[in-house]
């Protein structure tokens, strides 16, 4: 036990004060003559012995309060058992397992250095092994068994995820707080510069953490990678498919690099690409010979370089026949089929066919067989059909509703349920027609539609969009186009019809891209191939969606989700590069390509100065320096000052209560 501020023990001299006061007030038995003691009893209360005891107790309480106060300020402490210098510290061996560690012999060097460091541990010292890529993974418990640590080191394998020193530093700060012991963190990494955070302050370590860096990479080797590929996700005509790839070089000299297009494991084409020194180049492939269904494609660097893991860029393409649009028309909207089909037929790519039926026929909805459903001025829907459409939308389907004259009398919009306010007639306004006033230009339906220049609406059906997203409004404020998400799917409402009765839209050129882009959007063909990096999250369902299970198969064929997770989780972390199969049920399947984060491709090292700054952000200097020992000592010592202070406070309260009893009696006596 020791005292942090022994000078305060001088306050013990104050103990003389209550002693002196009590001596002064000590009862002196001065005889006093009294006429007769006949009426006095030899009673405990009449005796002063109880008062003597009270005085002694009061004296003891006051002495104790002063003594505790003096001790509290002197800050006594106890050393924790077994806390010799440095013996309480934990050695944490952190091995970088990010994708860049696949380059050359970096991982091998890291393992070797880690094994050496474990061998240097003293007997009884505790150590722990962790891997890190985008976050820290503790592999072992803090143990004093070097063999267990060595086994964990030998088992380290480089993955596909990127590294983040910012996340590592944050994890080390949390680790030190949890451990409540000094931490000596040994980092075995290639010290990749691209893994540094944006702000250097994110690298700061706690005062009790000492960082020892072991560089597994000695220089920035030349490396080539396919940085990105633009390719259609779905196509109907393989010959017309166009892929554009960006090839980047790091620490390289200018070189011509062969780049291959690989389809389902077969090289479909190879082209030489001149990549400038530390620059980028573009390569294009036309035509993609793929079978129907999903195909696994990649653009690959054929040259040998430092890091092979980033030589492939995976993408998936689904070939299908033109998809069927189920067009259900109301009793007065039969002409809308003609305009709709004509617009689709005039589109550059024939991606859809239209199957038109009267909405009164209540056809079966087969989600796997149709791209989406169009309801053209359907009027009052058959309840069974409406329920089937709602189920279809919730399951991920899309319905495009055009509100015409038959719909103006409805109380609510079919399928989506918004309240219908009635028709609005432009002939009652000044211009006798409505025009587009505002629109979301980024919405697929509005792209290349020239803002519906010159389009005139004579009659619209006004509905209350509620929480739906309004895409476009007319000049009278009527939402002319809005989208509502229901479950996994969506409903798009067009507050006019597709023929030239309520508007002259079908007569304008902008009608074609409007119909084509909207159709592609609703069919899901607007989606570009997702650019997922290993270690990121892929959304499976909307947060509030209650749909059936989603099965996810990892590139190695294993299930990425448990049964419970497949029914519940909104997203899955794609840890490995390759293709993930996502089965959503009802025949809906897709391939999700996952690539290594291209930041791992740049093998440039962190400058020495930066490394030195990073190391210095923890406990300063090597073990044995004053600051490090001071920090370690502070952790080892258990300070009781606050406890003594509380005890003094408690006794002071007791003393107050006890002495007030005597004060009351003294007042009564007086």
């Amino acid at each position, binding site marked *: 036990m020791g005292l942090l501020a022994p000078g305060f023990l001088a306050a013990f001299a104050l103990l003389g004060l209550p002693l002196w006061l009590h001596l002064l007030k000590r*009862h002196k*038995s*001065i*005889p*006093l*003559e*009294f*006429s*007769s*003691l*006949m*009426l*006095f*009893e*030899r*009673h405990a*209360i*009449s*005796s*002063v012995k*109880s*008062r003597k005891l009270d005085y002694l107790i009061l004296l003891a309480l006051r002495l104790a309060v002063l003594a505790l106060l003096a001790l509290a300020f002197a800050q006594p402490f106890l050393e924790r058992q077994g806390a010799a210098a440095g013996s309480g510290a934990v050695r944490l061996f952190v091995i970088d397992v990010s994708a860049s560690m696949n380059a050359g012999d970096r991982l091998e060097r890291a393992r070797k250095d880690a094994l050496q460091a474990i061998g240097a541990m003293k007997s009884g010292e505790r150590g722990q092994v962790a891997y890190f890529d985008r976050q820290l993974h503790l592999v072992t418990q803090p143990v004093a068994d070097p063999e267990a640590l060595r086994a964990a080191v030998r088992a380290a394998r480089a993955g596909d995820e990127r590294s983040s020193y910012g996340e590592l530093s944050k994890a080390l700060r949390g680790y030190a707080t949890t451990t409540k012991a000094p931490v000596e963190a040994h980092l075995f990494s290639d010290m990749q510069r691209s893994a540094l955070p944006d702000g250097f302050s994110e690298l700061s370590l706690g005062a009790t953490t000492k960082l020892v860096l072991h560089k597994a990479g000695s220089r920035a080797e030349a490396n080539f990678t396919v940085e990105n590929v633009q390719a259609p996700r779905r196509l109907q005509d393989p010959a017309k498919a166009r892929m554009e790839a960006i090839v980047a070089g790091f620490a390289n000299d200018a070189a011509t690099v062969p780049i291959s297009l690989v389809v389902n494991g077969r090289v479909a084409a190879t082209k030489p690409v001149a990549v400038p020194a530390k620059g980028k180049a573009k390569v294009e492939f036309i035509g993609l010979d793929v079978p129907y269904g999903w195909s696994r494609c990649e653009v690959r660097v054929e040259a040998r370089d430092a890091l092979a893991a980033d030589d492939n860029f995976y993408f998936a393409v689904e070939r299908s026949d033109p998809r069927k649009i189920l067009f259900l028309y109301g009793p007065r909207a039969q002409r809308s089929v003609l305009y709709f089909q004509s617009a689709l037929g005039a589109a550059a790519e024939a991606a859809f066919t239209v199957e038109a039926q009267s909405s009164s026929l209540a056809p079966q909805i087969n989600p796997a067989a149709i791209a989406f459903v169009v309801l053209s001025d359907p009027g009052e829907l058959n309840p069974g059909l409406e329920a089937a459409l709602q189920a279809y939308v919730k399951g991920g389907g899309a319905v495009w509703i055009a509100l015409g004259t038959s719909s103006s009398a409805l109380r609510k919009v079919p399928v989506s349920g918004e309240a219908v306010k009635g028709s609005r007639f432009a002939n009652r306004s000044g211009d006798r027609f409505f025009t587009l006033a505002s629109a979301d230009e980024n919405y697929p339906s509005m792209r290349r539609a020239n803002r519906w220049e010159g389009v005139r609406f004579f009659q619209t059906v006004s509905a209350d969009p509620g929480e739906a997203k309004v895409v476009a409004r007319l000049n009278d404020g009527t939402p002319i186009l809005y989208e509502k998400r229901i479950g996994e799917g969506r409903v798009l409402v067009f507050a006019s019809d597709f023929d030239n009765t309520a508007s002259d839209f079908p007569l304008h050129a902008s009608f074609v891209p409007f119909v084509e882009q909207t159709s592609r959007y609703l069919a899901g063909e607007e989606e570009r191939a997702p650019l997922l990096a290993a270690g990121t999250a892929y959304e499976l369902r909307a947060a509030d969606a209650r749909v059936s299970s989603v099965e996810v198969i990892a590139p190695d064929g294993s299930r990425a989700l448990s049964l419970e997770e497949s029914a519940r989780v909104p997203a899955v972390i794609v840890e490995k590069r390759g293709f993930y199969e996502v089965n959503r049920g009802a025949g809906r399947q897709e391939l999700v390509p996952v690539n290594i984060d291209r930041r791992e491709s740049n093998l440039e090292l962190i400058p020495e100065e930066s490394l030195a700054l990073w190391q210095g952000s923890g406990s300063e200097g090597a073990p044995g320096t004053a600051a490090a020992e001071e920090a370690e000592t502070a952790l080892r010592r258990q300070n009781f000052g606050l406890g003594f202070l509380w005890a003094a406070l408690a006794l002071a309260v007791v003393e107050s209560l006890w002495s007030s009893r005597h004060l009351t*009696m*003294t007042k*009564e*006596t*007086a």
Partner: protein
Amino acid sequence: MEQRFLDPKVLAGLGNLALTARTVVDGFISGLHRSPDFGFSQEFAEYRPYSLGDDLRYVDWNVFARTERAYLKRYRGETNTRLTILLDRSRSMGFQRGGVRKIDYARMAAASVAYLGHHQRDAVGVITFDDEVRDFVAPSSRHGQLPRVLHALERSEPGARTDFARPFHYFQEFLRWRGVVLVVSDFYAPPVDIVKTIAPLRHRGNDVILFHVLDPEEIEPKLGEPRLLVDMETGEQLEVAPEYAADFYQKRMAAHIAELKKEAEAAGLSYQLLQTDRPLDEALREYLIVRQGRL
């Protein structure tokens, strides 16, 4: 105005018991004269031939002018009676806290009553006692009796312990005449025993008055701190806590006074508590009530 003459401290400062008694009585009577409701009778009763030594103030000079003989007027209430004052002069009567000593107060009260009685032509006597009879002046109304009585009172200083039994046994044998017996004491004995000892005096046809003289500090002692109390008569010592004195003792004292009063009155004795910080008129008033009742 009257109170100035009756304040015990002031009276004690006079230092002359005779003067003190006279001051008290004159002041008391002058107050009585101005109080028509008091009931003190000044009604003329008879003439009595003047004897040498009688107070010339009571000579009826009209009669002397007519008859050249001196006669004293006698009034109602002036019927002679015997007043015997029994004064406790035990050591406990020497107690004093700030005011006057109990013995001094008792002497002043006794002297005043004696003076008043003598003023009314009563035969006054005094017996002082502690555990024995210490002084005795037989009741008489002769010339020079009052100074003898006052002298006996003056030389009464606190002596030995209180013991009612032996003196009062003697009194029972000795007091063969009927009259008023005034017992002045602090009565530190069980009330039952006191009354049992004194009551026989009543049975012999005497009117007995008990003057219970106590210092206020005896009734409500104020001990600021624990004190070692020493019994003035026995020398016994007892350490007493202020809380006890403030609570239990006061209750016991009040109970003792109440019991003594109750026992006394039950036995036909008059009882008056005299606190040494109170004027002496209460003592005189009590004597007159008893004497008036006797007439």
